């Protein structure tokens, strides 16, 4: 029983980071219809810049966080502007976007490796360990869950209540008619990339603090975020967040039964399972095309 509870707590910790990734991806997908796998690079940069400015250069963690967010968001916006918008002008097909996002992911990954090296980066932040009924949770982990929850609540408020949120949903629903209403959908897409990349940057920082940084995690996180999206039904932010916790939970189960080496493969197992048997996801109305 205690083990089950500890597994659930660990799943919530991992799930709250994946939820930031998945909701950012959904935000971007909703307005641009792009599966922005290169989001992995944005997350990776968030973690690595944060580590570099804080641990290597020795500045304060607050300044490091600001630098990390600026670099990540700029990277996301530049990718959109230089690659996706250029393709959009040429009326590119979906396949073209998919190939270019994979290319961006690989190039970005290689650049991060080149700039920061291939060794694991650790922050060695020691925080207090709390024990509830023989369950362990660190202060860092509590902060991580709170930060993620607050961000997701803010995001859902923005989407539901603000003018930008409504314009974003209108654009996602019907881009052509949104234009007829005077919405500049190109600006809405830019803002989505900004918000999505911001969430990605923060996810990168939190991952670094909690799990250490390794250059492969960009690819894995993009796949995990994508899997969470598919589980929840592509396009629904609530669904993506739910999917993120499912991914987190299955990873913990795999680690417990088969060992830590199986952790990263669970996202692929879930992805295949859903694409084959339930492509519309758990909450999706339409079939994922």
């Amino acid at each position, binding site marked *: 029983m205690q083990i089950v509870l500890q597994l659930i707590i660990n799943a919530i910790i991992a799930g709250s980071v994946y939820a930031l990734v998945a909701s950012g991806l959904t935000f971007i997908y909703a307005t641009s219809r792009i599966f922005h796998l290169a989001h992995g690079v944005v997350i990776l940069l968030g973690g690595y810049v944060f580590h570099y400015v804080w641990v290597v250069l020795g500045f304060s963690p607050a300044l490091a966080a600001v630098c990390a967010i600026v670099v990540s968001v700029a990277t996301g916006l530049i990718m959109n502007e230089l690659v996706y918008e250029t393709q959009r002008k040429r009326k590119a097909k979906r396949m073209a976007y998919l190939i270019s996002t994979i290319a961006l992911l690989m190039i970005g990954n290689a650049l991060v490796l080149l700039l920061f090296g291939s060794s694991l980066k650790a922050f060695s932040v020691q925080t207090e360990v709390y024990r509830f009924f023989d369950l362990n949770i660190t202060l860092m982990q509590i902060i991580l869950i709170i930060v993620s929850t607050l961000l997701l609540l803010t995001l859902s408020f923005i989407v539901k209540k603000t*003018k930008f949120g*409504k314009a974003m*949903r*209108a654009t996602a629903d*019907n881009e*052509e*008619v*949104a234009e007829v*209403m*005077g919405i500049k959908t190109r600006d809405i897409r830019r803002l989505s990339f900004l918000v999505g990349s911001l969430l990605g940057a923060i996810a990168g920082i939190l991952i670094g603090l909690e799990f250490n940084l390794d250059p492969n995690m960009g690819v894995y996180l993009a796949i995990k975020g994508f899997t969470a999206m598919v589980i929840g039904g592509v396009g629904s932010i609530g669904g993506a967040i739910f999917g993120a916790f499912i991914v987190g939970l299955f990873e913990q189960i795999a680690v417990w039964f088969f060992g830590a080496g199986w952790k990263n493969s669970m996202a692929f197992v879930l992805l295949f399972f859903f694409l084959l048997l339930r492509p519309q996801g758990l909450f999706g109305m339409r079939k994922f095309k």
Partner: protein
Amino acid sequence: MLMHIENLSAGYGDLHVLEDVNLVVDSSEMVVLIGPNGAGKSTVLKSVYAMTTKTAGRILFDGIDITHLPTHGLIEQGVGYVPQGRQVFSSLTVEENLEIGGYLLDHKETCRANLQHVYETFPVLCEKRRELSGNLSGGQQQQLAIGRALMTQPKLLMLDEPSLGLSPKLMHEVFEVLKRLAQEGTALLIVEQNVRFALHYVDRGYLLAGGRIKVSGSASELAKEGVMQSAYLS
């Protein structure tokens, strides 16, 4: 005269659709644009709404040249457009759809007042304000699409086949509302397939075929035996 389209030629990229189109709409006037499939009726509306490539001619609105204005500029000048096919934002509620219609309004009070005015025009939308617009019936969705365009209080409202897919009873309902809008001072330019039906309501009409205006005149002139046949067959 409110809108004057002068010698307009337009199309999509290399595809030329309209050739030397001249058309006038005045305040409080209900004008219909009829013609066979592929005549370019929708293209006339889309040309006004910055969705085509214009190769010649110009469009004057309220004395201002609006030929090359972008969408938000057109809305600010007072041109409204209801695209074909009851295209509401189906995942948004009725009220959110209307708010998006007023997206360019700067003041919250103006938005609220206009929202109230739309609800008075279409009471059923007020009843269903919290419902997802995808769950509305066809007729209600068409009312929502029109109401959404009314949020900016346009001087001219262009509608692309508002009767499409509606039952005869609902068609009459929609056109009764349009007629009331015209009486209140809004000019209307309507593309319609259902010729006999539309001519019953409108003041004037233009018959378009092969991208050119073939006949224009009052509704009673257009309704005369033979006028249509000659244009469709020529």
